[in-house]
């Protein structure tokens, strides 16, 4: 049997170590195979590898439901540079057999860290909207990857059946959307989180949000309900254009309130178009999340380079001792939102 060489998984070790605070950054590969934007992502990864202050680089898969360079391609390059990739794996464009093939490929390439999601509804593609597949849902896909950890058993009646495949040491996470307005929306999100963890999710990352009270609510809910897996808070630093799209409701699941949008608009008249303020706000959110007891942060944003992330991380250390002070400043709730805790 050709078993897997278990290399050091820095991301996993960091996240399971209660004393360390894990940092991941999100990279979004665009459409095309050799674009300048993709070169910039690799440049980012090179610097991250050199400094070693980011434990994993997460790579999105056809974000927004639009086609883009497959994440495993960049993942392979990033792994070679010496940073752990956290590859997004979504259900939207593949059936279960294709997902299984991709999991085998990830095992072969030693890309063991996965962020498993349903994915945004497929939209613009070649000569029209793409067919939404969703043959499996997130819970079922997590279960499939989880079974591969123990060694996948091929059903007896299937061709080549009755065998057990070599185990693959996946470390798989899921997402939770705690920033919901209605009770029915929030509770069904939480119920699904129970299922994801029961199916084998090893960690959780929150959706993009700008409401400190809700960040607090989800971590307390997990503690009170025995959902004992590490959680990373999503720190998204949007450009004004992306914030405006979120404000219009064009980015599924992400809410920018009128109050926050007017702040972005005011700041856009500053000489740096408000970039420094947005970075500082991100740094404060990291401090808040650290204070609330999060195991790490997942940083994302548009038009951010490595130096920006370094600036944010450095500033967050300065903000951390007074983290409670910043929670008041970081409160952009939806009107009449349901609060569970």
């Amino acid at each position, binding site marked *: 049997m050709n078993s897997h060489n278990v290399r050091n998984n820095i991301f996993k070790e960091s996240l399971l170590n209660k004393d360390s605070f894990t940092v991941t950054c999100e990279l979004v590969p665009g459409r095309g195979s050799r674009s300048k934007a993709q070169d910039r992502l690799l440049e980012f990864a090179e610097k991250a590898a050199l400094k070693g202050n980011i434990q994993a680089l997460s790579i999105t898969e056809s974000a927004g439901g639009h086609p883009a360079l497959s994440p495993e391609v960049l993942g392979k390059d990033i792994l070679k540079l010496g940073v752990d990739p956290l590859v997004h794996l979504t*259900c*939207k464009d593949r059936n*279960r057999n294709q997902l299984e093939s991709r999991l085998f490929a990830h095992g072969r390439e030693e890309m063991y860290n996965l962020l498993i999601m*349903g994915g*945004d*509804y497929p939209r613009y593609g070649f000569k029209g909207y793409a067919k*939404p597949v*969703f*043959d*499996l*849902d*997130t*819970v*079922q896909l997590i*279960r499939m990857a989880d079974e591969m950890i123990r060694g996948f058993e091929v059903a007896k009646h299937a061709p080549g059946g009755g065998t057990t495949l070599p185990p693959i040491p996946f470390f798989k996470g899921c*997402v*939770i*959307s705690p920033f*919901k*307005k*209605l*009770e*029915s*929306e929030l*509770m*069904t*999100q*939480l*119920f*699904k989180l*129970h*299922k994801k963890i*029961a*199916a084998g999710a090893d960690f959780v990352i929150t*959706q993009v949000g700008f409401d400190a009270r809700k960040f607090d609510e989800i971590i307390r809910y997990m503690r009170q309900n025995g959902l004992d897996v590490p959680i990373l808070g999503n720190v998204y630093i949007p450009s004004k254009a992306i914030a405006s799209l979120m404000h219009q*409701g064009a980015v*599924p*699941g992400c809410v920018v309130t009128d109050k926050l949008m007017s702040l972005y608009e005011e700041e856009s008249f500053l000489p740096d178009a408000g970039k420094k303020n947005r970075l500082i706000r991100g740094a404060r959110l990291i401090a808040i999340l650290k204070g609330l007891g999060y195991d790490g942060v997942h940083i994302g944003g548009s038009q951010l380079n490595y130096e920006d992330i370094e600036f944010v991380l450095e500033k967050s250390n300065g903000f951390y001792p007074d983290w409670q002070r910043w929670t008041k400043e970081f409160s952009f709730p939806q009107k009449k939102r*349901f*609060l*569970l*805790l």
Partner: protein
Amino acid sequence: MAVNRNKNVPRKSGFYCFNRWLHKNAFDKKGCLYPPLKTLCRIISGRSIEKLFAETEYFIKFSCFDCRMCGDCILSETAFLCPQSQCAKYLLNGPCGGSIDGWCEVYPGVKRCVYVRAYERLKSFNEEESLKYNIIPPRDWYLNRKSSWINYFMGKGHEALKKYL
């Protein structure tokens, strides 16, 4: 301050109550319709009349639930709302993260999220927490366009698979 979840309990819908009653009588082992239906389905299974039976089932369930004839019905687990026809992503184990104020990510302002509706129906019976526990396995495409009633009584579909999960 946190909002009290026991407040604002939705009203029980007559259609939902009727479906629960019918389902219990037909598919619960203690139900009065269970023995004759089981016998009938076992006799029909594998015979030429099976196709006509499946078409009849489809006609009834299409009219009532917008059925897609997947052959492995989960209506009783999602408050008699079918995710195959009413969820844009065909999700069986709960909602995606994209809903906006209770509306579906794909059809905002047109279609409400099927799990938001299921939660409200289940809450009217204090059963909303059932959405937390039962992991529904993937749809088996071998059963596509076959009678879910016959499959159920023949031990096929997710009711049988659940033991494995």
